[in-house]
C-alpha cells in the first residue's frame, strides 16, 4: 500500500496522544504523585495537540476535507465512521478531565478512566479499520488492532515517563509498567511478523478463477502506471525492510528499555539525562513512524495479483 504521509503521521501522533491518558491513568491509580500545575498544563496541552493535529492531518489526505463531517453517519457499518465518532466522543470526557484535573476537582479520576476507555476505543476503531480489510492479508490479522493499541500506549507511556522524569516524579512502578508494555508490544510484533509470512488463501488462481500449476503475468492494462498501481502496489526490497525493522526495534523498544534501566549508571549532568529521556521518546516516536511506514509499504493488496504480484 502507498505509505501516505498524512495517514502515517495521524495514526502515530494521535495514537501517542491517546496513549498518554493510559500512561497517566496508571500513575494516577497506582503511584502517589502530587502533580504540579505546570506538569498538568503541559501534559494536557501536549495530549490535546497530538490528538487534534493527528485528526487534522488525517483529513489532509481526503479529497474533500470540507465534507468530513459526513463521516459520522455510517457508524453502524464503517470502522472509519466509528473511529471518527469515537474520536469526537473522547473529547467530551477528555476536556472535562483536563478541566477537573487542572483545577483539582475530585472526580477527575473517573473522567480519566472514561477518557482512557474512549481513547482505547478510538485506537481500536483505527486498528479495526485496517484489520477488517480482507483485501490486505497482512492487515487482516488479529494482532493488528492490539498492536495499534500497544503502540499508542507505548508511546504515550514513554511520553508520560519522560515528563515524569523531567519533573522528578516517582518512576519505580511505572518503569515496570513500561517494561511490560514494551515486552508485550515486542512479542506481538514478532508473532505478527511471523504470522504474516503465511500465504493468503487469495492467490492468482482464485483471482482469475483458473486452477493451474503456474500462472504468469504477461501484460497489464497499461504499460505505465494507474491509480491502483500507485495506491495499492508498492514494494520495498526485503533487505531494506529487514533493516528498517531492526531500526524500529532499536528505537522504539531497545533504546527506551536500555535508558530506563541504565540511566542511573550514566554519570553525567542530570539535566542532560532529563533531555535524553525526551530524546528517547522522540526516537521511539520515529521508530513507530518507521513501523507504521513498514505497515503500509510491506502490505500487499490482493489487487496486485492482477498486476503480476506474487502471492
Amino acid at each position, binding site marked *: 500500500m502507498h505509505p501516505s504521509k498524512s495517514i502515517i503521521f495521524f495514526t502515530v501522533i494521535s495514537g501517542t496522544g491517546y496513549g498518554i491518558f493510559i500512561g497517566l491513568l496508571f500513575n494516577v491509580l497506582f503511584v502517589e504523585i502530587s502533580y504540579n500545575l505546570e506538569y498538568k498544563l503541559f501534559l494536557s496541552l501536549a495530549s490535546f495537540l497530538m490528538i487534534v493535529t493527528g485528526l487534522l492531518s488525517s483529513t489532509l489526505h481526503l479529497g*474533500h476535507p470540507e465534507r468530513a463531517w459526513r463521516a459520522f453517519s455510517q457508524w453502524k457499518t464503517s470502522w472509519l465512521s466509528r473511529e*471518527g465518532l469515537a474520536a469526537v466522543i473522547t473529547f467530551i470526557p477528555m476536556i472535562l478531565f483536563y478541566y477537573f484535573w487542572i483545577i483539582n476537582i475530585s472526580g477527575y479520576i473517573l473522567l480519566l478512566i472514561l477518557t482512557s476507555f474512549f481513547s482505547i476505543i478510538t485506537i481500536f476503531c483505527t486498528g479495526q479499520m485496517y484489520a477488517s480489510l480482507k*483485501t*490486505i492479508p497482512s492487515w487482516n490479522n488479529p494482532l493488528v488492532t492490539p498492536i495499534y493499541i500497544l503502540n499508542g500506549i507505548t508511546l504515550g507511556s514513554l511520553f508520560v515517563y519522560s515528563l515524569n522524569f523531567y519533573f522528578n516524579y516517582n518512576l519505580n512502578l511505572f518503569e515496570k509498567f513500561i517494561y511490560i508494555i514494551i515486552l508485550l508490544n515486542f512479542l506481538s510484533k514478532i508473532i505478527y511478523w511471523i504470522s504474516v509470512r503465511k500465504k493468503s488463501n487469495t492467490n492468482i488462481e*482464485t483471482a482469475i*478463477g483458473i486452477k493451474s500449476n503456474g500462472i504468469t503475468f504477461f501484460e497489464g492494462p497499461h504499460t*505505465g502506471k*494507474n491509480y491502483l498501481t500507485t*495506491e495499492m502496489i508498492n514494494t520495498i526490497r526485503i533487505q531494506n525492510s529487514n533493516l528498517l525493522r531492526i531500526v524500529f526495534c532499536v528505537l522504539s523498544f531497545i533504546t527506551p528499555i536500555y535508558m530506563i534501566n541504565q540511566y542511573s549508571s550514566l554519570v553525567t549532568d542530570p539535566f542532560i539525562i532529563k533531555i535524553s529521556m525526551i530524546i528517547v521518546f522522540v526516537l521511539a516516536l520515529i521508530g513507530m513512524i518507521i513501523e507504521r511506514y513498514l505497515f503500509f509499504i510491506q502490505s500487499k493488496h490482493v489487487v496486485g495479483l*492482477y498486476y503480476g504480484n506474487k502471492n
Partner: protein
Amino acid sequence: MTELPKKTNKKLGLVIDLDICVGCHACAVNCKEWNTSGHSSPLHDVEPYGDDPTGVWFNRIHTFEVETEVKGSKTVHFPKSCLHCEDAPCVSVCPTGASYKRDEDGIVLVNAETCIGCKLCSWACPYGAREYDETAGVMKKCTLCVDKIYNENLPENERVPACVSSCPTGARSFGDLGDENSEIVKLVSEREGYNLMPEQDCKPVNKYLPPKLNKDIFKNKELKPISKDEDQDFEDWIEQVQGASE
C-alpha cells in the same frame, strides 16, 4: 446506503466469457468513451501526451499465461471492471454513505456529492474496481452504464453497457443474474460460470466463464495411407487412388 440492502430486486451484472475474449481492449476504451461524458464525467487523463500518462478507466484488460496439463500454456485475456458484489465491502467501509448499492438493481454507485475521497473503499475492494479522481477529489467507478441501460433517449437495443455492446467477439453478456429464468443465468450454469476470489466473500454478481481447455471431437489421430506399403511409389499410389474412385 452504507448498509447493504438485504436483497435487491434485480442483480444486474455482466458475464464475461474467457473462452472467447481476445484481449482487444475494445470494451475498456468504449467504456472510457461513454463514461467520460456520462454519469461520472469526466474520466480524466493526467499528462495525456507527457512522459508518464495516466488516467481514469473503469474497465481494464489483463493478460496471463496459464500452464495447463494438456496443452502447454494458455494465454488468457482477462477483462475486469466492477463486479457489483452483493456483499460489497466498498459499500460497508464507506464512512459517509456515498458508496452505495441500489435496492432496485444492485448496481454499486458512488454519490459524488457526498464522497469525501478517503479512498478506503478502493482499499476494501479486492478487484481494483475503484478509481480515484484526483481532480474531483472523489472516487469513481463502473456504473454498469446506469445512464445507458435505462436511457429512454436511446433505442431499446442500445440500452446495454458500453463494454457489452462494443465487444467484437461477443464475450460479454448483460442481464439479471438474480432471475433464475433468464438466459444469462442459463448461460452461466451451462458454462459453469464462477466467482472471482470467492474466499473474499464479496459475492460478486458478475460471473466469468472459463476457457475451454479440452476439445476432443475427433475420432482419429492420423490418416491411413491408401496404400499399405509404407514406401509406395508414385505409380502405385495412382493405381490405388484410381481404384478407390472407380
